[in-house]
C-alpha cells in the first residue's frame, strides 16, 4: 500500500499512468454530458409547477455538488502535501482550484436565473446561497494566496492551509438547508435515499452528475500532467520526453 502511494506520488509514474487513463475519462465525460443534456433539455417532462425553468436543475445541481467535491479534494491534496511533501498532490490542488471556482460560479449563476422565475428574486441572503458565495471567495483566496509568495513552496503551503481551514464551510453548505429553514429547498438529490422526483426527471440528472465528475477527473489529469511538464522541466525524463515529441513533430 505505502509502496503504491509513493509510486503514485512520483511525477514520472503519474505521467505514464495518467496518459493511459485520461482518454477514457474524456470520452466518458463527453458521452455522458451529451446524453444527459439532450435527455434533460428535450426528453425529460416539464415540471407541473415550474414549467421548463426546472431544466436548470441539470446544470445547477451537478455544478453545486462538484464545486464542493473539488474543495474537499483540494483540501485532502493539501494535507497530503503538508504532511508527506508529495509534490504531485500540490500540483493537483493548484489545477483543481480554478475549476472549483468556476463550478461554484456556475452554481450561483444558475441558481440566480432559476430563482427569478421560481421565487421572484435573483438573490436572497439565504443560508445556502450565502455559504456558497463564501465558498467562491475561499476559492479565490486560495488561488490568490498561492501566487502571493516569491517562493513556490511557501505559496503551496499557504494555499494548502487555507484550503484546509476552508473545509469548515462544507458542512455549513450541506446542512444549511436543514439548520436554517429559509428559501432554498432541501436536497432533492441524494445517493442514499429514493429521490422525491419521478424517474424520468431523476435519471438524466444522475447522468449529468456522473458526466460532471468524469469531466473533473479528465481535466484534473490533463492539467496535472501540464503542471508536471512545467515544474519538472529540468528533470532528465521530461527532457527526453520533450525531445521525443519534437522528433515526432
Amino acid at each position, binding site marked *: 500500500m505505502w509502496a503504491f502511494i509513493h509510486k503514485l506520488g512520483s511525477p514520472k509514474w503519474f505521467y505514464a499512468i495518467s496518459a493511459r487513463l485520461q482518454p477514457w475519462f*474524456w470520452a466518458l465525460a463527453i458521452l455522458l*454530458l451529451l446524453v444527459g*443534456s439532450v435527455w434533460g*433539455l*428535450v*426528453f*425529460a*417532462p*416539464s415540471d407541473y409547477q415550474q*414549467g*421548463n*425553468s426546472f*431544466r*436548470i436543475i441539470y*446544470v*445547477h445541481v451537478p*455544478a453545486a455538488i462538484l464545486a464542493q467535491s473539488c474543495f474537499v479534494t483540494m483540501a485532502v491534496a493539501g494535507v497530503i502535501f503538508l504532511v508527506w511533501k508529495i509534490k504531485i498532490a500540490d500540483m493537483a490542488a493548484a489545477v483543481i482550484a*480554478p*475549476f472549483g471556482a*468556476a*463550478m461554484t*460560479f*456556475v452554481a450561483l*449563476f*444558475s441558481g440566480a*436565473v*432559476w430563482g*427569478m*422565475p421560481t421565487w421572484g428574486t435573483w438573490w436572497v441572503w439565504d443560508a445556502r446561497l450565502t455559504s456558497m458565495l463564501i465558498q467562491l471567495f475561499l476559492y479565490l483566496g486560495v488561488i490568490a494566496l498561492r501566487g502571493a509568495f516569491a517562493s513556490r513552496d511557501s505559496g503551496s503551503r499557504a494555499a494548502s492551509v487555507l484550503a484546509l481551514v476552508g473545509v469548515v464551510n462544507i458542512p455549513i453548505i450541506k446542512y444549511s438547508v436543514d439548520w436554517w429553514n429559509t428559501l432554498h429547498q432541501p436536497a432533492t438529490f441524494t445517493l442514499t435515499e429514493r429521490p422525491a422526483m419521478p424517474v424520468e426527471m431523476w435519471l438524466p440528472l444522475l447522468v449529468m452528475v456522473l458526466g460532471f465528475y468524469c*469531466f473533473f477527473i479528465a*481535466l484534473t489529469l*490533463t*492539467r496535472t*500532467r*501540464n503542471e508536471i*511538464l*512545467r515544474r519538472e*522541466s529540468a528533470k532528465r525524463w*521530461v*527532457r527526453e520526453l*520533450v*525531445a521525443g*515529441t*519534437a522528433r515526432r513533430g
Partner: protein
Amino acid sequence: MAFDSFLALLAMEGHAPYVWSAWGLTAVLLIGSALYARAERRHLLRDLQRRQRRERHAGREDAHES
C-alpha cells in the same frame, strides 16, 4: 419528447432566457476549460522544445571556443 417543435424547445414556454443562460454559461466554462488545458499543453511543449534547442546551440558554441 417534451416539446412539439424545435421552436418550442428554444422558447421553453417563456423560460428561454433563464434556461439558456444557465446552460450557456455552463457550456462555455466546460468547453473553455477543456480547450485551455489542450492549448496549455501545446504551449508548454513548444516552449520546452525551443529552450532545449537553444541550450544545444549554446553548448555547441562553447565547444568551438574551447
